[in-house]
């Protein structure tokens, strides 16, 4: 027994010694200098054979077809030769808009479309079988055009087929929301093949097996044996974990390839592992601007990816690039910011030696609250793992600056001041009151504006003018709403941005008098608005049951042509407040839509009556900072962080972002960019879409660009603003919550203001 104990004791020692040796060995391994592994995928842009394409069909020989709503079928051979099929579409005036498209290897085309109607009778006849149904069209290899009437024993007429694909043998397949069909393109006969849980949106063919995928699953179908095959768990798992974005497929030589936002993947058929071969962050796949729509496998494991927006890249393996970049630039924002993701992609392309990591606190896929996201960030800061760049939208900038998290930017911004490149009044508006330094800079700003008939809102004396104007409007229009604020919260949300900066005194204390005044004005406006909505009219309006439109003879209706539903919401009420969020297509706040800036005064007869005006509340010259960016004091890569900031403020980024179709997000703070955006004569956009009250017809309104005088007005407005409204503060939330009680009559404005003071007392004490 004693011997046994002794042996056991020895064993323990042996184990200890073994552990120490292992640790020592692993430490030694770690200390050895490793060679940087080289080689990773990169991409290059492909020059497109034309514009307007929305669909790409890869060919086995390395060429591809391009097709779109209003384009000819274009074939691009592997050597780059372009040939176009001119089908003279204009001859067939019945096609209004094409939707899903499929092209075969031989050049046959199948697509769904909505027709045009020349008379009400024609529309009514069509609508009898389902007004939202598609029609189908087949163009054979020779260019012969065949409008198809689909039929089949297990196909219900009117069922919309959303996605199509030709197999390499030329068989046509289609997917509805819950079923995959085979179609005889010559006769229009439809055969149901199998049911699906979700909408199948992508097909690939691996020999005789068709792989059809929806958001969560892959369906495998034996085309030769005409039977559904067993599921593939590896593919299903992959799709389930990539539900948030679109996945496109391609198959070649027994290998299935997947391309999606996170990267490019390879799967040897029937294996158990799907291997990532390119990281989406380091190629265009991760670019939030584009959604992958087609994938083509080329020779030597090179790839071609076609994206939305008629953009295409070729991915190739570059042995000279390090497999993993040596440096990392970490960017953090509370919520996804498309502009920052785009800038990250640009930066990534310019710096292949850097890995740009864009992290969001609340990424939409999980239920992380703002508070939890901030706690996570603070934990990282506490642990010394600060990001390099913080996007401060929705965050308390003063707090982060005051605690030394943010780097002072006065020095960094001084060249911009000398250049006079930025609206310096806006940069100055970001200066902290506590220490007089600048820690953050916005990329763009929203400008508060109102839209109304001039006679109602023409003053600039703040809330008093608004109330007086609305009183006049109510006298003239006793019925219907005055403002586009179905809910009390909408009204508060529209008033708060131009009033909030006035509620805090210079010493940081709360001005309850101002809050009472705010509540009084909000209450008066609410009561005036409610006076025109008696009984349950407001509730019906909120539910969208009741539509308010001004009578035909009223001027405001003419803004959008009387026969159509008021596209901009004007005419349903007499004044709208908001911010200039979108410079080209129109102005919209987060709470409502306003009309297009360039449409101001563009309609005959209303130019003197319906106007935009500077919206002043209790605070003057307010702007709403957007994409507010700061550099972390503890940034691991401070030089890269500054370089990234320079990119954000560069003409390239500001112009490119807006010019590539993302017009929302306010007015850029770079002077030249504002001018460039308003110089829109050279831009392609010349129409807006609208729908008639049947919801069918798409109408095209002529767009009138803003006159020089209007542009100057906007530039002047940009020069004037100086007071920054920062959303998401505790004070704002408290005033909004208690404001609802004031509007509901539970509290008087005085009681409301006192309650706000009581609630804020603890926060201020802290």
């Amino acid at each position: 027994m004693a011997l046994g104990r002794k042996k056991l004791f020895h064993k323990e020692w042996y184990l200890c010694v073994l552990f120490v040796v292992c640790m020592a060995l692993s430490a030694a391994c770690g200390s050895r200098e490793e060679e940087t592994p080289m080689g990773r995928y990169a991409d290059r842009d492909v020059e497109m054979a034309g514009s307007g394409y929305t669909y790409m069909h890869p060919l086995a020989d390395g060429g591809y077809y391009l097709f779109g709503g209003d384009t000819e079928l274009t074939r691009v051979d592997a050597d780059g030769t372009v040939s176009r099929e001119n089908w003279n579409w204009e001859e067939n005036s019945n096609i209004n808009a094409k939707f899903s498209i499929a092209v075969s290897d031989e050049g046959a085309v199948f697509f769904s479309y909505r027709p045009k109607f020349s008379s009400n009778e024609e529309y009514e006849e069509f609508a009898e079988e389902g007004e939202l149904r598609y029609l189908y069209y087949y163009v054979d290899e020779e260019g012969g055009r065949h409008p198809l009437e689909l039929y089949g024993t297990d196909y219900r007429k009117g069922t919309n087929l959303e996605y199509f694909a030709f197999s390499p043998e030329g068989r046509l397949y289609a997917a509805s929301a819950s079923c995959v069909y085979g179609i005889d393109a010559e006769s229009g006969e439809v055969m149901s093949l199998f049911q699906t849980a979700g909408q199948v949106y992508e097909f690939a063919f691996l020999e005789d097996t068709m792989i059809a995928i929806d958001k969560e699953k892959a369906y495998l179908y034996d085309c030769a044996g005409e039977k559904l095959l067993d599921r593939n768990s590896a593919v299903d798992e992959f799709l389930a974990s990539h539900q948030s974005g679109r996945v496109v497929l391609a198959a070649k030589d027994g290998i299935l390839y997947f391309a999606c936002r996170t990267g490019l993947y390879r799967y040897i058929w029937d294996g158990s592992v799907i291997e990532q071969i390119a990281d989406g962050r380091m190629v265009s796949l991760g670019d939030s601007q584009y959604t992958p729509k087609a994938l083509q496998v080329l020779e030597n494991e090179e790839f071609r990816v076609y994206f939305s927006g008629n953009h295409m890249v070729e991915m190739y393996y570059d042995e000279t690039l390090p497999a993993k970049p040596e440096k990392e630039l970490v960017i953090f924002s509370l919520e996804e910011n498309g502009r920052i993701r785009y800038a990250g992609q640009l930066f990534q392309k310019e710096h292949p030696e850097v890995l740009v990591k864009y992290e969001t606190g609340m990424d939409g896929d999980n239920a992380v609250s703002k508070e939890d996201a901030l706690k996570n960030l603070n934990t990282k800061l506490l642990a010394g793992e600060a990001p390099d760049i913080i996007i401060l939208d929705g965050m308390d900038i003063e707090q982060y600056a005051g605690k030394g998290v943010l780097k002072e930017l006065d020095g960094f911004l001084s060249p911009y001041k000398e250049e006079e490149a930025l609206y310096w009044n806006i940069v100055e508006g970001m200066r902290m009151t506590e220490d007089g330094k600048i820690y953050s800079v916005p990329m763009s700003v929203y400008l508060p504006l109102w839209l109304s008939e001039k006679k109602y809102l023409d003053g600039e004396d703040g809330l008093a003018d608004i109330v007086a104007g609305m009183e006049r409007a109510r006298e003239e229009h006793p019925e219907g709403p005055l403002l586009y604020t179905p809910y009390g919260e909408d009204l508060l949300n529209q008033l708060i941005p131009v009033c909030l900066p006035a509620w805090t005194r210079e010493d940081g204390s709360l001005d309850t008098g101002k809050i009472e005044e705010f509540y009084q004005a909000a209450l008066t406006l609410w009561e005036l608005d409610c006076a025109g909505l008696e009984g349950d009219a407001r509730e019906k309006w909120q539910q969208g049951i009741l539509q308010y439109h001004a009578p035909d003879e009223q001027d405001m209706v003419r803004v959008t042509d009387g026969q159509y539903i008021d596209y901009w919401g004007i005419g349903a009420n007499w004044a709208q407040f908001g911010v200039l969020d979108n410079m080209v297509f129109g102005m919209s706040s987060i709470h409502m839509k306003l009309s297009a800036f360039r449409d101001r005064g563009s309609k005959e007869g209303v130019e003197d009556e319906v106007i935009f005006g500077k919206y002043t509340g209790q605070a003057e010259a307010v702007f709403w900072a957007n994409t507010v960016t700061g550099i972390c004091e503890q940034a691991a890569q401070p030089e890269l962080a500054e370089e990234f900031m320079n990119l954000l403020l560069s003409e390239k980024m500001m112009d490119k972002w807006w010019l590539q179709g993302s017009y929302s997000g306010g007015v850029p703070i770079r002077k030249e960019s504002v001018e460039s955006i308003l110089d829109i004569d050279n831009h392609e956009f010349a129409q807006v879409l609208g729908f008639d009250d049947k919801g069918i017809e798409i109408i095209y309104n002529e767009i009138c660009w803003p006159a020089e005088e209007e542009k100057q007005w906007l530039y002047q407005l940009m020069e004037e603003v100086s007071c920054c409204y920062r959303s998401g503060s505790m004070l704002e939330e408290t005033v909004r919550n208690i404001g609802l009680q004031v509007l509901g009559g539970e509290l008087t404005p005085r009681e409301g203001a006192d309650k706000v003071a009581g609630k804020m007392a603890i926060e201020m004490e802290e």
Partner: protein
Amino acid sequence: MREKWQLKWRNKKSGELKKSVCRKSGIKRLLFLLPGFLGVLLFYLLPFLEVVRRSFFKAGNHAFVGMENYRAVWNNAAFLRAVRNTAYYMAAGVPLLMGISLILALLMRRLTARRKLVSALLVPMAVPAAVMVLVLRILVDKQGLINGVLSFVLERAGGGTAFTGTDYLNSKGALAVVIGSFLWKNTGYMMILWLAGLAGLPKEVEEAAAVDGAGRWQRWHYVIRPQLAGSFFTIGMLSVLQIFRSYREIWMAAGSYPQENIYFLQHLLQNWYLKLEFDQMAALTVLLSAVLLVLCLILQKRLEADAG
């Protein structure tokens, strides 16, 4: 003589052997304890020491500030408010919880259907926090059940008088609501602990006291209560800890800035964390730990003195 010497030698030998065995088994015990001790050291003691260290430094630039953080905490009005509210909550909640659960345990220990009742009383403990908050809201909201019943009764009594309800969690009665939910959630569990304590008491002593003519009160005061001193300490400590653990429900129901009388120390700590007041947070944590430690020691001494 030889035999005597042999006996002495044998005793000595056996003593050494025993010592040697003890030493070895002591080492073994230590080895068994080591992982646990290392865990406590790594995950509790060392981080706590780091918190103590941080409490003397400024959060932003890491400059040594001595007692400045402690002074800042002490002079912070929100801290004083939170301490006062937490003290009220504890002073009302802990005795009520212990008292009610003890009374229930005493009533139930002779019941035959005890098990089913115990299970029923344990249900609140198993209810997820979110559900509990929902139930609370249904009860005490402005359009809640309590106001609904009151409205119904008052309208009947007053002949249709309009009754405007109160949002109790945003009124001065918020503390009472919080204490009520705390009792609802924890009474069953504490009662089980009391029942376990009561089950461990020898019945003979109580029976002997009854035979000697002691009444119920005398049996409780002279026989049962002194023997429950150990349970009293454990349940008391657990009740205090439950007070601190109930923050999650309060936060979910009333947010980071609730009605001022239910603003507790955890609210302050959470808000400071969001506001990056790490230095003051560290100082407050050290203060709070010290207070809890002193409280434990006092309670333990008091109970030991009672038992002695």
